[in-house]
């Protein structure tokens, strides 16, 4: 049996089975996914925390060491894109449905319930933004940067494909290599499928919440979820099937402008100086606290449940997206040195995330501490309403809410479209022009999984969100091990290809 056929035979039925189980017996899927993630987190939380922190340390080491001068491509290769374009594309990669969904909700949630400060106090507000920055900052981008760096190095210096198995096949010898390399591709497929389906489900929740908030029409039925999902499905499948690459790029650019407008307008219409102070303070607090947080597992406190449902879920979620985002970042980084690459990928999106959360989260906290409050109550009841409730307190509310809904919708379309491409590529032995039928099949599979997650309840609530999180990270837990083997192969290659003066 051909490798690609075998890969499809292993992964596609697994994904479809999970989707069908989710629709037929949602509680069984939720319980099973919840049990698996909870077992992994409760047993080896130290491993996940250590892995993500080690990625960050390794990235910084590579940038600072002699390896930092190595070019991703032939030594005389010039960067394919200008630095400005490259940074702008990294900046776009840093955006996604998540920042819209959690922009207000996460800091405010930490404000009312998180370890490190008495809830509802000024200290809690400060702590909330540091924790949010920790979840969306350097660690997330260290994972992406290492995943992308490995692929880029093997692609541009050794001429391999973008498959996760390529570094393993080229970096090691032995009988274990073939099965592990095959598993790497299969697990990457599962991680991307579940991760994107999870994001799709969460995005649908927010689109519904936004439409409900703006129109006043309660979209609390399964039918409404199905309609939003079908619209999304039609949009991203049309794009995937007709190769509307230019259209998607155009939409992405529009999204970037809309996001910048949204954050800029909020900054100006809100308490501008306060929000800028919040940003600067958060950068400082995060900078001084990141080492402490990087290795903090609360063994002596009753905060393990919090750690598992926030920090660890985030880190694993980033790993779920790593095979996907990694390919994108690798593709745009040909000709960059490792130093440029690591610093660009670590700092630009992290800076943008911190700014975004400082503005939206900072405004939410401002309302709680100095304004009329009420955001925490909304967040307690429904995360997805948080941003729209905040927009109610700014001028041009309908415009802002409309932009937010559009942003989420377009993010979802572009993400799902890119995911169908990456999945098609992964299951076509790294073919950068995957067959249309492969893309269609993965598009349907993602929609099916999204439906399984979102249709479990007529009105998605916090339990739905937790279930979505559990399923989304299901594929990423094993991919953590694959990522580490890839990184090991990369380090071996670096040491062999560029022996130091002593060697």
């Amino acid at each position, binding site marked *: 049996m051909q490798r690609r056929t075998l890969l499809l035979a292993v992964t596609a039925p697994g994904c479809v089975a999970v989707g069908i189980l989710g629709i037929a017996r949602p509680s069984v899927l939720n319980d099973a996914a919840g049990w698996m993630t909870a*077992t992994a987190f409760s047993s080896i939380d130290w491993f996940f925390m250590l892995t993500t922190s080690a990625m960050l340390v390794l990235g910084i080491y590579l940038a600072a060491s002699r390896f930092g001068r190595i070019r991703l491509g032939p030594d005389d290769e010039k960067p394919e894109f200008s630095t400005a374009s490259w940074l702008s594309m990294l900046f776009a990669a840093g955006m996604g449905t998540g920042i819209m969904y959690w922009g207000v909700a996460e800091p405010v949630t930490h404000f009312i319930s998180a370890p490190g400060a008495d809830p509802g106090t000024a200290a809690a507000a400060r702590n909330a933004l540091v924790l949010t920055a920790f979840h969306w900052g350097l660690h997330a981008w260290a994972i992406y940067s290492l995943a992308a760096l490995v692929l880029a190095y093997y692609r541009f210096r050794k001429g391999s494909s973008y498959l996760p198995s390529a570094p393993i096949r080229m970096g090691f010898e032995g009988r274990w290599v073939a099965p592990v390399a095959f598993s790497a591709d299969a697990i990457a497929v599962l991680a991307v499928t579940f991760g994107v389906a999870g994001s799709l489900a969460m995005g649908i929740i927010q689109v519904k919440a936004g439409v409900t908030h703006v129109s006043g029409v309660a979209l609390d039925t399964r039918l409404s979820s199905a309609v939003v999902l079908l619209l999304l499905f039609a949009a991203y499948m049309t794009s995937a099937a007709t190769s509307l690459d230019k259209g998607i790029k155009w939409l992405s650019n529009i999204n970037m402008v809309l996001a910048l407008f949204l954050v800029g307008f909020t900054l100006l219409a809100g308490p501008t100086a306060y929000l800028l102070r919040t940003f600067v303070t958060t950068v400082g607090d995060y900078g001084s606290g990141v080492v402490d947080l990087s290795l903090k597992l609360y063994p002596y406190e009753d905060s393990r*449940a919090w750690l598992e449902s926030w920090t660890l879920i985030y880190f694993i979620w980033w790993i779920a997206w790593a095979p996907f985002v990694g390919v994108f970042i690798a593709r745009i980084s040909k000709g960059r040195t490792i130093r440029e690459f690591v610093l660009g990928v670590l700092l630009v999106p992290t800076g943008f995330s911190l700014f975004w959360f400082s503005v939206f989260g900072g405004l939410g906290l401002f309302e709680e501490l100095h304004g009329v409050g009420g955001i925490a109550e909304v967040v307690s009841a429904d995360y997805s309403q948080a941003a729209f409730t905040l927009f109610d307190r700014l001028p041009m509310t309908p415009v802002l809410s409309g932009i937010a809904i559009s942003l989420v919708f377009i993010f979802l379309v572009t993400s799902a479209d890119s995911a169908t491409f990456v999945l098609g590529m992964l299951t076509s032995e790294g073919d950068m022009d995957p067959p249309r039928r492969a893309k269609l099949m993965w598009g349907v599979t993602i929609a099916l999984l999204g439906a399984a997650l979102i249709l479990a309840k007529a009105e998605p609530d916090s339990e739905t969100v937790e279930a979505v999180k559990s399923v989304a990270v299901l594929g990423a837990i094993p991919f953590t091990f694959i990522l580490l083997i890839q990184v090991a192969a990369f380090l071996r290659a670096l*040491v062999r290809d560029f022996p130091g003066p002593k060697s």
Partner: protein
Amino acid sequence: VRAALFAAALAAGCASQRGANVAAGEDPIAAAAGELLHIELAGNPEGARRVDCGDAVDCVAKLRRGAVDVAVVERDELEWLAPAGELVIAAELPIERSFALVSRPGASLGGDPRVAASRRFASRARGGLADLARAASIAPRPQIIDDPEARAAALATGAVDAAVFESWRRPAETSVVATVRGGRFVVATRPDVMARDRDRDAVGRASGAVSVRLEKLGDRIWAAIAAGVDPVDAARALAPPDRGPPPPLVLAVAPRHRDWTPAIERALAQRGIQVVGGDEPAAGDAALMLRAAGAAPIDGAELVAVFEGRELPPAELWSKTGLLDLAEARRILFASAHARLPAGDRPSAWRRLSDLKSARPHQTPRWLDTLINVAVAAFLIWLLALIVRARRA
């Protein structure tokens, strides 16, 4: 200018939503009544103003000029100060000497809910002049002094008669008249105050003159309650503007179960019940509040207590404070706990709250935990060996 604008607004029949200016003469009783009225009418105390006047004549003159909206004047004086019909009595304070809350006819606040509030207050103040005067000294928010040493100095110099301290910071020469938050805070006073007024409860009630700064609204309310302010008054006076008084629901959770509190709060919020009060008050605090409320549900209040993880009904724990008997505690707790929960939830309301306690970290069986950890450790060692071997090669 502000008074003129305000008077114009009143004349137009649209009383400001931000509060009314109140005049009260130098007479201590009138001043006390004026202060209370100021709080009652204002809704937002900072938005309103209490204007001191030299005497009743001055008060009425200010009222006539429109500089104030309401004045507190003795009824006897009013009869000779203003012709019948010129001023309107909005409410009466039936205390030792009968006082009236007086306003201009054109500026009558009749129908304004704030007047209703003042009427309620007026009837509540029926307890007598001493209570009114004492209450007046504490109603306009406890004086906030952050620094405990400055607080101690204020107490020592006689600037205030009592103060709240963390128990370990109480100055040695002071006496404890009340405890707050299960003993973490104490209300302390000077020996001369104790000698002057041997009624410890009374001193305790009057102790809100100085309080600690507690960040949260709930804590501020606790502090005021501990200082003897009626819980409803405390909630009303300390609630941020525009939000209105929060429903006086008390959620009491033992300190070691603090991590459950957000989950319980969320569950209650989803049922439309807002939570005020500390997040970890001890049983004594909750009992204090109950006692302050007259050991009966205060109008519309919800009292919910969740203690420990055992099956022990909260009512029994409450009764252990010795302030309530078991039957009474049960009656209050269950009557209030079931009041606002959806009908379908009532029989299992407490169990549902108890279920939330199960939101603990997932516990993996020990053998599986060990197995997974050994496997992961072996993987890491293998990985390290791969890298090191490449370096040697």
